[in-house]
C-alpha cells in the first residue's frame, strides 16, 4: 500500500472513531496527527528502522488514540457502527427474503401459466419450452422426441376388428402417446388400423356392456379406430394428436398434452363442451336439443380445433 494511502486510511479511521466530537475539533485533531506523522517521517528519513508503518504503529491504533482523546475530554466512547453481526444477519435475512419471494413468484408463474406459447396465426402451441409442440401447419404433434403426424409410415401394421354385440353400449379407449384418429364404422364392427413399433395386438375386454380397447400398452405411432355409429366413446390419453371425424355418438375425450381436431357432420347437431386449460381452442357451440350429440373434450395443455 502506498504510504500516503496508509496515512489517509489511518486518519479516516481516526476521524470515524472521533465522530462523537464536533467536526471542528475533529479537524484540529486530524491535522495535528497528520502534522506529527509528516514531522516524524522527516525526522526518520535517514533511519531505515523507521518508516510510515512504524510511525503509525507507535501512535497506536486509531481506536486507542480516539479513546484517549474522548476519555481526556470526558466524552463517552461509542463504538462506531461496523459490519458487525447485525449487518451480516440483515444481509442473510434480505437474501433469504428475496429468495423466498423469487421462489414464490416463480412457483406462482409456473402454477398459473405453465409456459404456454401460443401462435394463433400459425396454429401453433408450444408448452413447457417446446417439450410439447403442436404444429397445425404441418399437422404434427411433437412430445419430447416423439413425433406424431399423418406422414408416419414406419412401424409394423397392427390391424384388428371386433364385432360389437348389441349389448355393448359404450367403448373406452385408453392410450398413451400416439396419433389417434377416430372415424365412423359401417356396421357393428369396430376396427383398428395401426402402425406400431412392435407387433402387439391391443387387448379387448367387454365388461358390463362396456368394451375397452386398450391401446395403452402398444408402442403406437399412429392408429385409426373406426367406431360403429351411436356407441358412447370415452378416450383417455396422455400425449396425443387426435383427429375425429363426424362423431356419431356421445364422445368424451380427455387428453393431457396434445391436439384434438374435430370435423363435424353438418347434418348433425352437436352439444360441445370443450375445455383447454393451457392453450387454444376454437369456438364450439352448445345445444340443448335432445338429438344433439354430446361431445366433451378436455385438454390440459394443447389445442382443440374445429374443421
Amino acid at each position, binding site marked *: 500500500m502506498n504510504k500516503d494511502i496508509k496515512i489517509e486510511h489511518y486518519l479516516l479511521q481516526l476521524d470515524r472513531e472521533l465522530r462523537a466530537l464536533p467536526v471542528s475539533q475533529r479537524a484540529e*485533531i486530524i*491535522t*495535528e496527527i497528520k*502534522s*506529527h506523522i509528516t514531522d516524524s517521517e522527516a525526522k526518520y528519513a535517514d533511519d531505515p528502522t523507521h518508516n510510515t508503518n512504524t510511525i503509525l504503529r507507535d501512535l*497506536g491504533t486509531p481506536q486507542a*488514540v480516539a479513546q484517549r*482523546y474522548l476519555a*481526556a*475530554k470526558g466524552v463517552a466512547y461509542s463504538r462506531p457502527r461496523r459490519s458487525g453481526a447485525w449487518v451480516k444477519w440483515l444481509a442473510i435475512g434480505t437474501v433469504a427474503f428475496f429468495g423466498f419471494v423469487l421462489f414464490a413468484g416463480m412457483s406462482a408463474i409456473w402454477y398459473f401459466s405453465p409456459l404456454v406459447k401460443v401462435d394463433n396465426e400459425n396454429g401453433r402451441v408450444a408448452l413447457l419450452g417446446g417439450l410439447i409442440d403442436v404444429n397445425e401447419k404441418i399437422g404434427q404433434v411433437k412430445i419430447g422426441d416423439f413425433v406424431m403426424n399423418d406422414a408416419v409410415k414406419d412401424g409394423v401394421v397392427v390391424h384388428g376388428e371386433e364385432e360389437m354385440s348389441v349389448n355393448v353400449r359404450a367403448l373406452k379407449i385408453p392410450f398413451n402417446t400416439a396419433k389417434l384418429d377416430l372415424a365412423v364404422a359401417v356396421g357393428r364392427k369396430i376396427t383398428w388400423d395401426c402402425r406400431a413399433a412392435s407387433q402387439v395386438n391391443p387387448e379387448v375386454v367387454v365388461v358390463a356392456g362396456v368394451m375397452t380397447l386398450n391401446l395403452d400398452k402398444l408402442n403406437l405411432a399412429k392408429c385409426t379406430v373406426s367406431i360403429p355409429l351411436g356407441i358412447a366413446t370415452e378416450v383417455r390419453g396422455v400425449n396425443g394428436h387426435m383427429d375425429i371425424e363426424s362423431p356419431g355418438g356421445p364422445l368424451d375425450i380427455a387428453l393431457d398434452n396434445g391436439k384434438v381436431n374435430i370435423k363435424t357432420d353438418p347434418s348433425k347437431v352437436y352439444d360441445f363442451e370443450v375445455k383447454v386449460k393451457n392453450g387454444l381452442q376454437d369456438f364450439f357451440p352448445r345445444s340443448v336439443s335432445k338429438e344433439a350429440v354430446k361431445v366433451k373434450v378436455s385438454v390440459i395443455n394443447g389445442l382443440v380445433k374445429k374443421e
Partner: protein
Amino acid sequence: MQVELDNWRVQVKKGYLEMCLLLILRKHKRMYGLELLEKLETLQLALKEGTLYPLLNRMTDDGLLKPTWETANVKGHPRKFYALTLKGVQSLNEMEDEFLKMTELVSKLQVDGHRGKK
C-alpha cells in the same frame, strides 16, 4: 507485582506528567508535539505519541495551554505550537507547591520507615 507496579506508575504519572509538560513549556516557551516527545524522551519520561496528543488536547480544553497553528517557517505543513496560558502558569505554581509538600512528606515517611533507616 509487575502489574500492580505498572498500575501505580500510571496513576502517579498522570498528574506528574502534566506538571512536567507545563515545566518544559515554561522553560522553552513554545513547542510542538514532536519536539515535546523528543524532549520527554531525553528526560527518560518516555510517553507514547498516542497519549501525548490527547493529553495536550485536554490541557488546552482546561485552559492551561494555548495552541497556535504555524505555517510559516515550517516545511509545507502546519505545526501546532503549545505555550502556557496565564492560567497554566498559575496552575503550575500551585502544582509545584503541592508537589513539594508531597515529596517532603514522602521523604519524611521514608526516614521514619525501614528503608530510610538503612
